[in-house]
C-alpha cells in the first residue's frame, strides 16, 4: 500500500504543505525564472523549501515541479529536460522525507499545461496525456510516493492527467482551482467535479480544491464537495488571504492566526487533507498544525460563521444548484 493511503487509514486528518512560489521568491528566485531549474542549479534551496514544510508539521509536501510539463518548460527552452528536472524534484524530496523521523509523503506536483484544449484551443487529448505521463514518470522515478495534480481549471485536463497516471499505475491526488464566481475558470462547479472524479477509471486517493480566491471561498467549495457525497477524501489547500500591494511589495493578508482558523473550519467542513497555497509560509503551517491538534472537531461552520471568521465571499453563490440568473432565453433554440 502506498504511504498516503496508509496514513489516511490511520489518521483523521493530514496536513499538507504551503506555498512553493512564495517561499522560493523569498530565497531569491527571480520573477520569470522557472523554479524547476533550481532542482538542479540550487538544490539546497529546494531542500530548504521541503524542510520548512516538514519542520512545520506537514505530513505531505509537494515537489518543486508545478511547471514541469513540456508545455511549460518550453517557455524557457527546457522542454527537453522534463524527465531530468522532475526526477530531481522528487529525489530531493525523498532525501528530506526519509530523514524526517516520521512518515512524510513526497507528492509529485503536476500543474496545468497552460494550454487550452481542442476544439477551443490547440491542445489535443493525446498530447496532454503524453506530456503528463512524461512528467509523472520522472517524478515516480525520483521516488515520489504519489502524484499530485493541482490548480486545474478544465475537466478535460483533469481527465487527461488521470489517464496519464493510470498508464503508469501510479497513485494520485487531484485538485482544481475555483476562482471564478465559485467555479473554476472553465465553469466547473464543486458538485460537477465530484461527479467527474467519481467517473474517473482510476479514482484519485483524494480530490479537492487549491488556490482560488480567499479562504472563505475555498471553504464554501469544500462544503459543496461534501454535500455531493464524494466518498473520497477531500483536499483543501487555500491561499493565505488575498495579495495586497503595500509600500511597493506584495503581501498576503492572511495571518498565521487566520490560517489556523481556516484549517479547523475546513476540517469541520469535511476536508481530510489540509494545507495552504500561495502566501502560506512555515509560520502559517505551524499555526495550522497547532490549531488542528488543539481544537476538537465541531459541526461544519455556516456561511455567516465563515464570513465572520475569515472575511466575505467573492461572489454571492458558489455556482452549484440553480444558476443565480438564468442564461438568456434564445429565440432559435431553447
Amino acid at each position: 500500500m502506498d504511504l498516503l493511503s496508509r496514513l489516511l487509514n490511520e489518521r483523521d486528518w493530514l496536513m499538507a504543505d504551503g506555498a512553493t512560489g512564495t517561499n522560493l521568491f523569498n530565497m531569491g528566485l527571480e520573477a520569470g525564472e522557472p523554479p524547476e531549474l533550481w532542482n538542479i542549479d540550487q538544490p539546497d534551496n529546494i531542500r530548504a523549501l521541503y524542510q520548512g514544510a516538514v519542520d512545520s508539521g506537514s505530513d505531505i509536501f509537494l515537489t518543486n515541479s508545478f511547471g514541469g510539463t513540456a508545455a511549460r518548460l518550453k517557455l524557457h527552452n527546457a522542454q527537453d529536460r522534463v524527465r531530468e528536472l522532475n526526477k530531481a524534484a522528487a529525489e530531493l524530496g525523498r532525501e528530506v522525507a526519509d530523514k524526517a523521523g516520521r512518515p512524510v509523503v513526497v507528492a509529485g506536483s503536476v500543474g496545468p499545461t497552460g494550454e487550452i484544449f481542442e476544439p477551443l484551443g490547440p491542445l489535443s487529448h493525446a498530447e496532454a496525456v503524453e506530456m503528463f505521463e512524461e512528467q509523472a514518470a520522472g517524478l515516480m522515478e525520483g521516488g515520489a510516493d504519489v502524484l499530485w495534480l493541482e490548480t486545474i481549471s478544465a475537466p478535460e485536463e483533469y481527465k487527461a492527467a488521470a489517464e496519464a497516471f493510470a498508464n503508469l499505475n501510479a497513485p494520485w491526488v487531484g485538485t482544481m482551482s475555483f476562482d471564478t464566481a465559485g467555479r473554476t475558470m472553465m465553469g466547473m462547479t464543486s458538485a460537477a467535479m465530484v461527479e467527474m472524479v467519481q467517473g474517473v477509471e482510476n479514482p484519485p486517493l483524494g480530490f479537492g480544491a487549491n488556490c482560488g480566491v480567499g479562504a472563505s471561498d475555498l471553504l464554501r467549495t469544500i462544503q459543496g464537495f461534501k454535500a455531493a457525497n464524494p466518498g473520497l477524501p477531500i483536499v483543501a489547500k487555500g491561499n493565505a488571504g488575498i495579495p495586497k500591494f503595500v509600500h511597493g511589495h506584495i503581501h498576503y493578508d492572511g495571518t498565521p492566526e487566520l490560517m489556523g482558523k481556516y484549517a479547523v473550519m475546513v476540517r469541520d467542513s469535511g476536508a481530510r487533507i489540509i494545507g495552504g497555497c500561495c502566501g502560506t509560509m512555515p509560520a502559517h503551517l505551524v499555526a495550522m498544525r497547532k490549531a488542528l491538534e488543539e481544537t476538537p472537531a465541531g459541526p461544519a461552520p455556516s456561511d455567516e460563521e465563515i464570513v465572520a471568521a475569515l472575511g466575505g465571499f467573492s461572489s454571492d453563490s458558489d455556482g452549484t444548484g440553480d444558476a443565480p440568473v438564468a442564461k438568456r432565453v434564445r429565440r432559435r433554440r431553447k
Partner: protein
Amino acid sequence: MSDQEDDLILDELDDGELVLQMHDDLYDGMADEISEAVHILLKRGWTPYDILTKALVEGMRIVGIDFRDGILFVPEVLLAAGAMKKGMHILKPLLVETGAPQLGKMVIGTVKGDIHDIGKNLVAMMMEGAGFEIIDLGINNPVEDYIDALKREDADILGMSALLTTTMPYMKTVIDTMVEQGIRDDYIVLVGGAPLNEEFGKAIGSDAYCRDAAVAVETAKEFMARKHNQAG
C-alpha cells in the same frame, strides 16, 4: 436535439429580427450563422461599420455582461469570440476600404517575468470581438518592447497583464518609464491579472484596473470615447 422545424431561415428575417438573431448566435458561438448573417446584411446594403457595431459588437457586449456576472465562463466566451472572428474576417477588408472609423488600437502583453497568458489571450480576443485592433506582444515583455510597439503602431491603448504577485510591480516600471519619456499621457494604460485589484491599479499610475476581459472591453470603450471628445 432541438426541433428542426424551429430552425429559422435567416434571410427571411427583417433587419431588426436578424440583428437580434445575430446577438443570440454570437452568444451560442454559432460561427457559420454569423458569417451567413453578415453576408445577408451586406447584400441588403448595410455598411460594414453598422454591421460591426450594431450586430457583432453589441452581441459581444451581451456575452461580456454574462461573463462578468458569472453566467458564462471561458469556454462559452471562446466560442463566441470564434464566431465573432468569423464575422470580422468578412468585414475587416471592407472596413478598411470604406474608411470606417476605428474603435482603437491596443498593444497587449504579459509583463517581463510573467509567462501566464490565458487571461491576456482572453482579453485580446474579447477586445478584437469588440472591434479593436490588437497588437499582441505575447509573454515576458520588457519595457522597451511595450514602448516600441506603442510608437511603431501608433496605438491608443496599452494593456499589461500579470498573473504573479512577483511580476505585478513590473507594471509600475513600465508606467514610470513612460512618464520619464514624457509619453505617459499619450496612451490609455489598462492593467489586469488575477492578483491585481483597483487599489493596485491606482497605486502604480494606470488609468484603470480591469477585473476581467469584459470589463477591459467596457473600460477601453469608455476611455476611447473620452479621448475622442477631447480631440473634438
